[in-house]
């Protein structure tokens, strides 16, 4: 365990965070710093919102703006536990997940889940349209973000949706490395159960392996 933790620490040597000073000035309300900071992180806010919600989701812009507000609120508490950009992406992911969960509560088992086209997934796996299958798989993971416990959903989002490594997730979330691994394992188990519960998804997963 110690080796793992030390390995995680060694993976990213101590380097100055390029955004740290800028983030401090932005947190202090410096208008020029806020502008530069948002020009820098703005594309990431949009990217995260699109990844979590889907590019066509009508609330992408609103979520990006809400994320920017949330980042500004949280910046004074950032103590350099992780890179500023990682911090920002995590906040954006959590903000977008709130929207997903709010939607899921409002129309649970209604339009959005029924609209999911499982045929795209199965058809794509057979090679007709790989990109379509990839998007359908992504949509299924998004659905899981609605239903998993928040901690597992967060780890799944940061690791699978945003592509953070496990050590990066641990740094960003402020939880131990092993806890992240455990949550990720549980999230994958839940996802697998969800896939296996549907014969078409199960067949698609079998074909993909």
């Amino acid at each position: 365990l110690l080796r793992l933790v030390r390995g995680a620490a060694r993976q990213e040597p101590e380097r100055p965070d390029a955004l740290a000073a800028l983030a401090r000035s932005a947190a202090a309300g410096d208008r020029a710093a806020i502008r530069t900071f948002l020009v820098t992180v703005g594309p990431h806010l949009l990217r995260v919102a699109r990844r979590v919600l889907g590019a066509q989701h009508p609330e992408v812009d609103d979520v990006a703006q809400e994320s920017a507000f949330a980042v500004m609120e949280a910046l004074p508490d950032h103590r350099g536990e992780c890179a500023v950009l990682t911090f920002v992406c995590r906040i954006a992911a959590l903000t977008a997940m709130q929207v997903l969960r709010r939607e899921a509560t409002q129309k649970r088992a209604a339009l959005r889940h029924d609209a999911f086209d499982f045929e795209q997934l199965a058809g794509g796996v057979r090679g007709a349209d790989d990109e379509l299958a990839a998007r359908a798989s992504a949509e299924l993971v998004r659905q899981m973000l609605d239903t998993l416990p928040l901690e597992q959903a967060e780890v799944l989002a940061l690791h699978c949706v945003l592509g953070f490594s496990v050590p990066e997730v641990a740094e960003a979330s402020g939880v131990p490395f092993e806890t992240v691994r455990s949550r990720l394992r549980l999230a994958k188990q839940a996802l697998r159960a969800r896939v296996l519960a549907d014969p078409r998804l199960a067949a698609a997963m079998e074909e993909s392996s």
Partner: protein
Amino acid sequence: MTADNDAMDKFLQRATRGFEADSPVLAGDDKRIERIERAVQRRYGKDVRRPALRRQVALLAACGLLMAGAAFAALKWADSPQEPPGRGGPAPVPPKVAPVAPSPAAVPMDPPALAEPVAPAPSVAAPATSGGAPRPAPSSKASAETPGPLLHAPGPLLTAAELFAAASRARVAGDATKAVALSEQLLKQFPSSAEATATRLSLGMLLLQQGQPARALAQFEAYERTAAGQGRAEALWGKAQALQRLGRAEEERAALRELIEKYPQAAYTGAAKKRLAALP
């Protein structure tokens, strides 16, 4: 069970490709970011520098008044032996102010310097830009450090933040030449600023697109030396691409391996593995 895990991992890899395909950079993103910035400025922006600037101006004005008052008193004292004031006499003629030389401290009070909202007066030593990068005073020394004419300069000189924002806007708008020029200007004027570090990545990518791999490589390597976080994966990928175009296969291989080992989940890792496999 292992086979199930493998199947699930492959399923998630495919989903990751779906997420990547679902997060495109769209044409109006720069406008979206500007809207977000305006909203954030309205809620969180403070006039951090203006109070300090106002205090400086008030101080300078007070100094000017004191100097004028002292000059007036001196003139009056000098005149007093020739024309002693008599009771009920005519009111004394106000002294001519013109001969009084203006204080050097009053020079920064010229209107253009005050019209720029974020620009400190030239003699003020307060930090001027975000990220700790000092805004150069518009002196002859600063001009000598600025190699070419300023692009898009609305005021006397642009801050690091303004240069960075202008370069980003040009890049998003597809004007690569202007974006490169602004980024290079930022690097020359504010080499140690946070904005300069951040701009190296986009500058490297732009130079790669423009077919200048050697210059691009220098930017990626400089970014690697100074920055941390996820951007380093992008820098490594850019470095590998630059090395590929320069025909330096061994170094390219090393960069790709480093990217795969250090950032296994990065968006570039899949492409890096393919490229590594294709290398002789």
